[in-house]
């Protein structure tokens, strides 16, 4: 498939229809053959059973597959975009993406069962990103449509990236400040458990676009009524409604995990703690906190990743963020611009997710690690 589908497309300018090229019609000499050889090797490996050696070979071939696909795309870009087509640009399509996906599946599938040092595993996983980043930094990818879009907006990009991160971070912090006590209250006071969960669950079911929209009217009203609020920047559109909506979205995982973390502490442990003469504070320090913090953190992890995604929509009500590019791209029928906005969002989400996983691993006491991993 990787070899048969069109591999790359050429557009004479930004909005023109793309012209698909097959791997073999690009006018390249040896590069397609290299790719074909690697694909063949991968197929052979797939048939050759299990074992540590096969696994290592799979990882090597899988990584090589991505590198080769990228190389072909680079070379193709250099050939297709010439002086004669100053606004021309290339974009990877079917064949390239299937190669990249296959590379990911082969490498990840083999790593999952391998018992190697986590550091080495991590390095292998980061390698394709590093290669892509290297290619990007060297300017070799400049003929690519996405990169073209980026180059035209470099300043704007870093500004919106910061806005995006700031919105998501503040929203999650606010959600922690509200959500953790809410979870505790829901656990301690049985009467409040249902209303609290009904509320946060309901919020979660409101489509994000609608929630952002719903914020506009009441906040605009407040802002008109109270000059003080207006002075600190509260308006119907912009950062304030976005923050509120994002915070509301971030609540559910935090409230739910806080509640769960308390409910899974065995009664016997609490009774033993009391019976040994722990004060309220000591019970929190020696029993409740160590047992519940990892679970609460994994709720925050879910919230952050969600918030990074949801913040995209915040651009619609003028709060900024990487969503700006996505909606610009939608408006201008420029898919490459959309992709340029979406890829950093995905990368951010994945990065933060891994980072949180690492942190959770660190704060989980050794005796509990078995159940959580």
């Amino acid at each position: 498939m990787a070899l048969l589908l069109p591999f790359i497309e050429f557009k004479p300018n930004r909005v023109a229809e793309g012209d698909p090229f097959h791997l073999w019609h690009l006018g390249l000499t040896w590069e397609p053959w290299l790719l074909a050889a690697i694909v063949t090797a991968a197929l052979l490996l797939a048939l050759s059973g299990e074992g540590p050696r096969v696994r290592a070979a799979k990882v090597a071939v899988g990584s090589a597959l991505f590198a080769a696909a990228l190389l072909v795309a680079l070379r193709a870009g250099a050939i297709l975009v010439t002086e004669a087509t100053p606004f021309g640009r290339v974009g990877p399509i079917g064949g390239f993406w299937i190669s990249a996906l296959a590379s990911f599946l082969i490498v990840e599938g083999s790593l999952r069962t391998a018992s190697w040092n986590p550091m080495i595993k991590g390095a292998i996983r980061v390698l394709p990103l590093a290669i892509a980043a290297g290619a990007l930094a060297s300017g070799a990818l400049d003929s690519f449509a996405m990169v073209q879009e980026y180059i035209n907006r470099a300043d704007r990009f870093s500004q919106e990236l910061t806005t995006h991160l700031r919105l998501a971070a503040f929203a999650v912090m606010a959600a922690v400040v509200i959500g953790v006590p809410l979870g505790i209250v829901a656990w301690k006071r049985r009467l409040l458990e249902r209303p609290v969960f009904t509320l946060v669950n309901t919020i979660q079911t409101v489509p994000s676009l609608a929630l952002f929209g719903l914020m506009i009217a009441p906040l605009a009203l407040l802002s008109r009524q109270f000059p003080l609020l207006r002075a600190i920047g509260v308006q119907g559109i912009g950062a304030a409604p976005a923050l509120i909506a994002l915070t509301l979205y971030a609540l559910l995982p935090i409230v739910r995990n806080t509640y769960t973390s308390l409910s899974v502490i065995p009664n016997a442990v609490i009774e033993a703690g009391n019976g040994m003469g722990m004060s309220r504070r000591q019970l929190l320090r020696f029993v409740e906190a160590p047992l519940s913090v990892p679970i609460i953190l994994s709720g925050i992890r879910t919230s952050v990743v969600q918030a990074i995604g949801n913040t995209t929509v915040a651009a619609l009500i003028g709060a900024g963020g990487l969503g700006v590019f996505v909606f610009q791209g939608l408006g201008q029928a420029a898919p490459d611009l959309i992709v340029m906005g979406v890829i950093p969002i995905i990368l951010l989400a994945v990065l933060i997710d891994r980072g949180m996983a690492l942190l959770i691993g660190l704060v989980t006491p050794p005796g509990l690690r078995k159940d959580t991993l």
Partner: protein
Amino acid sequence: MIEFSCVTKHYGDITAVDSVSFSVEDGQVCVLIGPSGCGKTTTLKMVNRMLDASSGEISINGRNVSELAAEQLRRGIGYVIQSVGLLPHMNVRDNIAIVQRLKRVDRRQRYRRADDLLELIGLDPEQYRLKHPHELSGGEAQRIGVARALAADPPILLMDEPFGAVDPLNREVLQTEFLRLQRALKKTVLFVTHDLDEAIRLGDTIILMKDGQIVQHDSPERILAAPRNQFVRDFVGADRALKRLSCFPVEGYIREAQQIADQDAASFSNGGRGPDSVVWVYGADRALVGMLQRSPSGYKVITLKPEEVGVVPLSSMKEALSRLLGQGIRAVPVLDQRNCVVGEIRLPDIEELNQAAL
């Protein structure tokens, strides 16, 4: 000494404990027993103020517990519960040392104490101190629970059905362990159970409760021999003769045993002894491996598993009898910690003990 005088506990309209008075002497084990809902656990929990009495007075060495700060009081009383409640995120050593940590004893001293306690309860510190609760069996976890209660060396122990969740075989082992510890440590123990055999075996005195009141407070032998009323008679059951055997540790009835090394077994000749006597066979490290049995062609060795046939000096005579009947042999070997035979228990002695009561 723990003293209850006219202690009552109400839950709303329900009276869980009704004007109960008794005392437990220093170094004695007092067992609270009765049907569920009789108030035995409530009684126990009022001592360390996990529950507060509605009226009446509980005192420890003359000091009224309601005048002491609950946390301080509890740190001076060992507390063992059926579900153990080890802190799952801490290793065995930190679990044992937790009360001392609350008391701000420094770490080196705490850890040394934890190792000592592991030795005391018969678990190898090297092997166990860094384990986590999920790696322990039920019996091991309960032992650690006892070690934790003993860590700060409290004079008083409260034990709330500590062996109730352990399988019967392990329960007997833990009871024996408890008797051994109690002999060495002489704690003042209040012990709740619903298992009469356990009460008879472990208790210096037994308090039988019903509907929040004490029905009979007596020594195990007296409870069995002289039940005060029909309720006690029913509770004790028809097999009280058998139960009574639980009162007696086998150590008082050990007879000398005849034993022989396994390499000499082939050339054994019954040197004029009665045909019914048992000859135990030991292996290289003097540990029991089997017994000799007469066959038409002389004697042959039957292999035995020490842990299945043997008892220890602190086992009860009831256990010895059940091993006798279970294995279908004439005597039960009494073993030391290395499974060496130190003597035997014979059926006639058990019968005689039983006759004496009737």
